[in-house]
């Protein structure tokens, strides 16, 4: 069987998924340091991209199964994963990822990938192809727990950070020092992201190569696979999903340095603990939960529950929506080469449409900059002298205005 064309298509789409994964998830690590002005937007994405690249090369413990056991991939009793099925699943994941980026919603890229593959497997092999127990314990429950664990952690950390740095004698607490900490904590998140997420794409490409007989089963990923995946995710991260960064950095709550540091540390510790002691939590969901929790923990910060609700709704839809797109694509690919061609053309068309729509309402790094200026002004607490000078100037201005108003009045009568 000649699989060359479909294999090339799968690899291209997998790399593009890796790219979308990168720009979708820049926000997880870099939204709060950008929002507090700890690091400029351009530098933040460059740092995240480099750490993603390094992370992708560091860890090559490629997932042995594409779906982490959600799809029954057993060679004797389960579904045989065909490149067409992977292609359809990836298409579902990519389309959903780009769509949520257009809406500025942080949604889990892994859930999109699982969803697309699940949809493709159901269409390809029926509902029995899915292990629903694994789906529940590996996707649905962690999706509920991740924001809760991270949110509670960030709430407690924010409270603690503010109470420790509070000065009883009324001196300035100088909390700006938390900004430097944020650079380190967010770098840790970016590195963890690189080691985790680039692996998924490497796994998908390697399994496709194995399935089509181009690589012996049981061997590690080729160097070119590792290199291209690392570069794809780093490029995606560098491109920066500014829409999502804006949502995470200032859409949920206004982030101050101490609060941002607490959120970042909570994100990093939750991701590291979960991936080492039990199950993998979605980076995106952990980071969103942390930001909300830190907003609840700081006095005077308000959490915009409308935005939080929109994000939660996005999570709810990620798996089924990607599954439906993946399923439709799988159904089309079953008709043979023509179907694969239709899926490819329609998919690219949809992506171009989303991109076109995004140009109408462009969000770039400069849009996140204005928030820095604001937060910078808020952090820069005026000294007593400056405050007095400002109050004097304001009083003078208002007196002058009143005087002018009085002078004008006779003309009116």
């Amino acid at each position, binding site marked *: 069987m000649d699989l060359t064309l479909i294999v090339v298509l799968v690899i291209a789409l997998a790399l593009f998924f890796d790219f979308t994964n990168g720009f979708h998830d820049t926000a997880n690590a870099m939204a709060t340091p950008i929002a507090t002005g700890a690091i400029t937007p351009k530098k933040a994405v460059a740092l995240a991209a480099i750490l993603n690249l390094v992370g992708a090369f560091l860890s090559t413990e490629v997932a042995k199964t594409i779906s982490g056991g959600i799809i029954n991939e057993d060679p004797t009793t389960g579904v045989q994963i065909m490149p067409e099925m992977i292609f359809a699943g990836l298409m579902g994941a990519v389309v959903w990822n780009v769509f949520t980026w257009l809406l500025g919603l942080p949604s889990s890229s892994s859930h999109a990938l699982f969803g697309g593959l699940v949809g493709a497997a159901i269409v390809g092999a029926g509902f029995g192809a899915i292990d629903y127990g694994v789906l529940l314990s590996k996707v649905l429950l962690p999706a509920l727990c991740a924001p809760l*664990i991270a949110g509670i952690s960030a709430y407690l950390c924010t409270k603690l950070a503010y109470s*420790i740095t509070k000065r009883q004698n009324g001196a300035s607490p100088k909390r700006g*020092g938390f900004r430097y900490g944020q650079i380190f*904590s967010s770098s840790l998140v970016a590195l963890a992201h690189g080691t985790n997420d680039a692996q998924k794409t490497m796994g998908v490409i390697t399994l496709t190569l194995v399935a089509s007989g181009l690589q012996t089963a049981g061997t590690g990923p080729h160097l070119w696979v590792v290199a291209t995946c690392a570069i794809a995710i780093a490029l995606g991260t560098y491109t920066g999903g500014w829409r999502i960064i804006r949502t995470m950095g200032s859409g949920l709550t206004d982030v101050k340095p101490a609060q941002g540091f607490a959120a970042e540390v909570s994100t*990093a510790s939750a991701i590291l*603990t*979960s991936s080492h002691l039990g*199950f993998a939590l979605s980076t995106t969901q952990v980071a969103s939960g942390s930001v909300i929790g830190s907003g609840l923990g700081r006095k005077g910060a308000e959490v915009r529950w409308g935005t939080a609700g929109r994000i939660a709704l996005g999570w709810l839809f990620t798996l089924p929506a990607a599954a439906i797109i993946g399923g439709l694509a799988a159904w089309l690919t079953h008709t043979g080469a023509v179907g694969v061609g239709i899926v490819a053309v329609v998919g690219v068309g949809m992506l171009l449409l989303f991109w076109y729509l995004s140009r109408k309402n462009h969000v770039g790094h400069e849009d996140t900059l204005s928030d820095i200026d604001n937060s910078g002004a808020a952090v820069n607490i005026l000294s007593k002298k400056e405050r007095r000078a400002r109050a004097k100037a304001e009083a003078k201005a208002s007196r002058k205005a009143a005087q002018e108003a009085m002078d004008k009045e006779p003309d009116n009568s």
Partner: protein
Amino acid sequence: MIDWSAFLIVALVSWIAALCIVTAYSFGVRLLAVARDEDSNTSVSKFGAYLCFGVCGVIVLFGVVLIVPQLSRAILGA
């Protein structure tokens, strides 16, 4: 089949780790602020602050060791 104890462990460990880092860093920030007060023993406060930041650095380095498989195998042996 759902491993509730794993959830609990993850929650507790991540809370404790995050609280430790934030506590250490916050004391560092506070001591730096104290060091800038006029009538204080600047060098002691500064030393304490850098000690606190050092503790944070060690915890973060441990995080890096956990992330990088080669390092965790070499250092932690697992």
